[in-house]
């Protein structure tokens, strides 16, 4: 009996996940599956399982120290340290990352001061995208049922607005509101039914919408930043 020939759709997906993890497929097919891991949570879970199943083989990979210049080049690229001047695009990335780092530190400090213990009433997410340069920090306050947003970088094009969404695996995005343009911080109070969706692991995303927000109730423009909620 051939296992493959009797495979159902579920098994087919699982074999594809295994082939993707092994990396045996031609480049174009591999790229299609890579995109699928980003949009199909079930498939991504299959991929993760195969990575874990085959992980014991990684014991056969040796260890070797990369030259110190690798870390220097990496720091220069990510953080703009003076090791060597890199391309202009990295300069701007370094700038927003620097800003993001400062904002994160300030935010975390502000949050940590009153509550030195882990705070079950709060969730935090860093919403960022290196391509768009949009970066917000989001804190959800369970007691108040509100999302606080701290603007780090990035603004919508003239005549358009950023809208905040929450995405739970396997469900359509739900709008949490339009982010007031240009404000350094904003607070979006959520209606009671929305609050249930704000959980650790849920994803917050910001999309670019027509002024006033999406006319359809679903994102109509590109997602310009996203990040997952986690316990603080």
């Amino acid at each position, binding site marked *: 009996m051939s296992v*493959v020939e009797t495979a159902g759709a579920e098994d087919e997906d699982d074999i594809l996940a295994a*082939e993707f993890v092994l990396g045996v497929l031609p480049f174009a097919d*591999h790229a299609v599956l890579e995109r699928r891991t980003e949009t199909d949570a079930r498939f991504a879970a299959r991929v*993760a399982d195969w990575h874990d199943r085959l*992980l014991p083989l990684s014991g*056969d990979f040796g260890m070797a120290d990369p030259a110190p210049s690798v870390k220097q080049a990496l720091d220069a690229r*990510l953080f703009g340290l003076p090791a060597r001047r890199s391309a202009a695009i990295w300069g701007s990335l370094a700038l927003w990352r620097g800003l993001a780092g400062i904002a994160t530190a300030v935010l975390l400090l502000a949050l940590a001061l009153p509550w030195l213990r882990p705070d079950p009433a709060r969730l935090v997410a860093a919403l960022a995208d290196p391509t768009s340069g949009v970066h917000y920090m989001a804190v959800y306050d369970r007691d108040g049922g509100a999302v606080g947003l701290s603007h780090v970088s990035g603004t919508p094009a003239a005549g358009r607005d950023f809208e905040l969404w929450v995405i739970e695996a396997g469900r359509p995005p739900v709008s949490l509101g339009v982010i007031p343009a240009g404000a350094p911080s904003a607070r979006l109070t959520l209606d009671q039914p929305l609050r249930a969706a704000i959980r650790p692991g849920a994803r917050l995303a910001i999309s670019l919408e027509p002024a006033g927000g999406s006319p359809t109730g679903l994102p109509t423009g590109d997602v310009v930043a996203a990040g997952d909620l986690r316990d603080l």
Partner: protein
Amino acid sequence: MPEGHDKDDISGLILGVSLRDRRAFDRLYRATSAKLFGVCLRVLGNRPEAEEAVQEVFVKVWLKADRFSVTGQSPMSWLIAIARNQAIDRLRRRRETAGNLDDAALGMRDPGPGPEVRAIQAGERRRLDGCLGELDGDRAAAVRGAYLDGDSYADLARRHDVPLNTMRTWLRRSLMRLRECLDR
């Protein structure tokens, strides 16, 4: 590689990186760069290219750290997946097989007791080896070749001297058997 890192340490460092903590990033680099460079070196077979690849790997780690927690993978599994992907992508782009370079010339060290080794129960390795052992000899070699050396179906078909579709049928069947055995 510094001793004393376990799974939770590495997870914590990745979480720190997701919060843009540079010290966490530096520590993660110190703890895991030798292993991830080893992955790139094995797949790519030369230091200059492996050094470029491992740099890309850590850029991805910095950019994607916030996705780690939703994958449900163990931390070394996640990191090694990024390194293998990066190295195999490069290998594919290069479109030529790496020569047989000896370990000394590459500066390879023996796999020491790094976090991945401690994180992986020796039993899990025995179990996987046992299940690979249940496959026909050359099929197990194909799985290993793909995982460790980045062989594609085309490479494997050439090596085992069979048509590409035959190779694919063999390997897919072997992967199903492997899963059944491991999940048993």
